[in-house]
């Protein structure tokens, strides 16, 4: 099995590792780097539980949401990757994280990390995203606990904070 030596910049830290060429990003994050804040669920890009942000020059905000189970780690060589564990700044939660707590959008929590990362990308693309846009963008991130009501409310709330600032 082929190996690749790659450099990832994960949550601001440079990380030089050798990965199996066939291993997905979620596999490497969880099993090689012990970053269990990224959850594994369907393994085929259907549920969004493993969503992370990867830099992308074309994306507004410079990064886009990616299912970490749908990309090979080796293809991420040189990329900046943000996981939900890297959103806090100096112990202060990201507004989307805070809004999820305030609005009661967290139930079992298994989809939450991916859901928050997707929500961050939605608001980076359009801080004034309206309800319809939020709902349609969140398709692909599955939650079975909340009926999405409080999740959508949380994204709207976080959006309103960021546009006020």
């Amino acid at each position: 099995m082929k190996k690749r030596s790659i450099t990832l910049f994960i949550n601001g830290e440079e990380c030089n590792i050798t990965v199996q060429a066939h291993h997905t990003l979620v596999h490497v994050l969880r099993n090689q780097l012990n970053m269990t804040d990224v959850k594994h669920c369907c393994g085929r890009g259907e549920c969004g539980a493993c969503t992370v942000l990867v830099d992308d020059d074309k994306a507004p905000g410079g990064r886009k949401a990616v299912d970490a189970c749908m990309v090979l780690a080796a293809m991420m060589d040189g990329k900046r990757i943000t996981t939900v564990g890297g959103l806090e700044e100096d112990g202060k939660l990201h507004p989307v994280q805070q809004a999820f707590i305030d609005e009661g959008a967290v139930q079992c929590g298994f989809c939450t990390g991916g859901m928050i990362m997707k929500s961050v990308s939605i608001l980076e693309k359009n801080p004034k995203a309206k309800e319809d846009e939020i709902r349609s963008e969140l398709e692909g991130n599955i939650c079975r606990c909340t009926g999405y009501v409080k999740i959508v409310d949380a994204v709207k709330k976080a959006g309103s904070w960021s546009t006020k600032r």
Partner: protein
Amino acid sequence: MAEYSVVGHRIPKLDAREKVTGRGMYAGDLRMEGLLYGKIVRCWEYAHAKVKKIDFSDARKVPGVVKCVGSKDVTQRPYNTTIMKLLVPEVFADVFGEIADLNIFNPVVKHQGDAVCGIIAKTEEAAERAAEKVKVTYEPLPIVMTAAEAKRKDAPQFTPLKPGNLAADFPEAFFPGGAYGHNTPDGKTPAQHMKEADLVVEDTFYCPRQKQVQMENHTYIAKYDDRGRLTCWTSTQMPKPVQNLIAELFELPLTRVRIIQAPIGGAFGCRLGMIGEPHACALAMAVPGRPVKVEFLREEDWVASESRASGHIRVRAGFKKDGTPVAIDADYEVLKGGYYTHGSGPPFCTAAFMYGMYKWQAMAMRANIWFNNMVPYGAYQGYGNPENTFAVEQLVDRACNQLGLDPVEWRRKWHKGIGDDTWLKGVKFASCGLDDCIDKATKAIQWDKKKKEYAKMKGTKLRGLGLGVMQHTSGAWPMLLEYTNTIMRLNEDCTVEIMNSCSDLGTGGHTAVTQMAAEALGWPMDDVHLKCCDSDCNGFDIGAHASRTIYCVGRAVTQAATRLKQELINRAAKNLQVQPEDLAWGEDKEIYCTWDPAKHMNARRIAKESIYSFDDPATGKTIGIPGQIVVTGDDFVKHCSPPFSASCAEVEVDIETGEVKVLSFVNAHDIGKAIHPPSVEGQLEGGSQKGFGYVLTEDIYYDKNGLCLNNDFTDYKMLGPSDMPVDMKAILVESAPDPLGPFGAKSCGESALMGPIGSVANAIYDAIGIQINEAPITPERVLAAIRKNGGVKK
């Protein structure tokens, strides 16, 4: 209404922060020294086959493989995944015909995904690669999918314990005539009553095999250590009963089985009893001293863990001209799947909830539960109630339509309430807020205004309104054991530790239990810590099922809090040399004498001196009263305080495509008292998503060989964020606090799933004038029904 300082407040959930940062550690996130990986080899190619031969020779060659484990390498004891046997008197279990027909690795595959053997390897990848290399030779057996096929004389037999493939029915010994239900005091049966009815509505309804689809795949770690203790980390809903089941299966005393509960990534019933715990433990016992992790893949989770019961239910309901409900009578043909597991439970509850809702003079339901080659059904939020709701709520609207009665008024008039039997005869409703729920739900959806507007609608997109009501339960008494033990220990700084085995499925249960304890003590939340994840220190609790946590555990912790405060009063009385009755609680843990405020002392001192107790060097007298205060809360509640709810749905049916869109939805829930309101709303909103799924999109489909056609998120359609109605309201009705519920609370854990079922089905009926008897009501079924009727009947 009483003002509370903690209960009813919208505080952040205790586990919210660790979940938004990703720091919450689920079973799959745990890391351990020397961890090995187990893989269950499952049969994917057949739904029914004999295992002729297992050849591990290629699998053993895969680098990293530690051990290949065949069916003879593990215990041969058959088991049942459920705890039913533990929760009813022994004689009941016998009468109900509870059996153990499942093995860890099965010699005959009875459904796709059945476990055949196992692999242990150094990495997950090696275990998976080796599992693929195991050569299993099968002898295919004839497939049994329908009740008719199961009944055939020449049908293959699933187990010698149940000849004729009849897994269960309602046994004559309990149910005269083989029917759950009740005749009138004069002995008249529903059939006899039915002759006096002016109108009998009757139909057969198909109830789908819905999947729970919790987001976290089933994952376990097990370890058999050098002391001969078996530890299992699991996200089970029922840590204590699982400890019992594992002990029985592996013939160990409870002292040698430890269950550590990991946070639960969703459950909805699918983690009731055992799922992969036996396999993880058996693999761990094959490599003593090493922890073994077993993580299901999503596609395994789908076919190897239990679903909701499916089948056909025929219901007859009789009414007088004025709407008086006369009798209801039903026959339910249920498809069990390959193993017994929850055989009798869900169909029994379908009947029970049918009994509990309306004032029928007589009621009867017979059920036959047939083995077949589907994934076995088990527990799922609602447990039998969705089946009842789908059929009965539609028949009520049909009868109202034919009698020219208003379905809202009919329900208001004929629902059961205080003093009537709940879902079990003899247990009477102690509270009922349904009238308020109906008022609030119909008002919120603008029932009268929209009803008039939509009656005149023309065109290809027709709108309709529907109402559905339900009653459910808080705990499973009197059907099942209802017991919880709580230990409350006072720390030396006058804070408390609570030990209870209750699990939190993400519903906010632990937050609410802590709130109730804090409120009952009169102390801040920070002074209370709930410890509930380790069988080594927790007493007995059944676990999270039957919507029982707030009601049953809440009663136990408030009882413990009362005892703890009384002990503090007793000690203060001794110290102050007054009677306990003379003392009262003041601010900030102060205890004072009511007739002499100069006599007072603080509970903090009592707490400190209970541990740091010395003899005064000058007088030789003991300072304070020695002995840490530890009390228990022991609750065997003899009731089930059912909550009610009323739901209104507004739908738009496209009669050209058959598509149904839910435009708005209101669920008004008779909660008694919302302990943690955001969690109650969350339960109602999330339950609705599954209820919409039941009535509109969700069913497990099989091909003719019994192989599952939709075991993934793409082919199994659940409502996504843009399918859900944007206009959703959850209304918490607190006008009918329950005299037995802690702070008046009734349950909300399961009940919201039923709301959309009756209301959406009835809204479709209102929109197109045709009822659709098969759930989910897919566009195909809508179009077929319109075609069969020669157009809409509006």
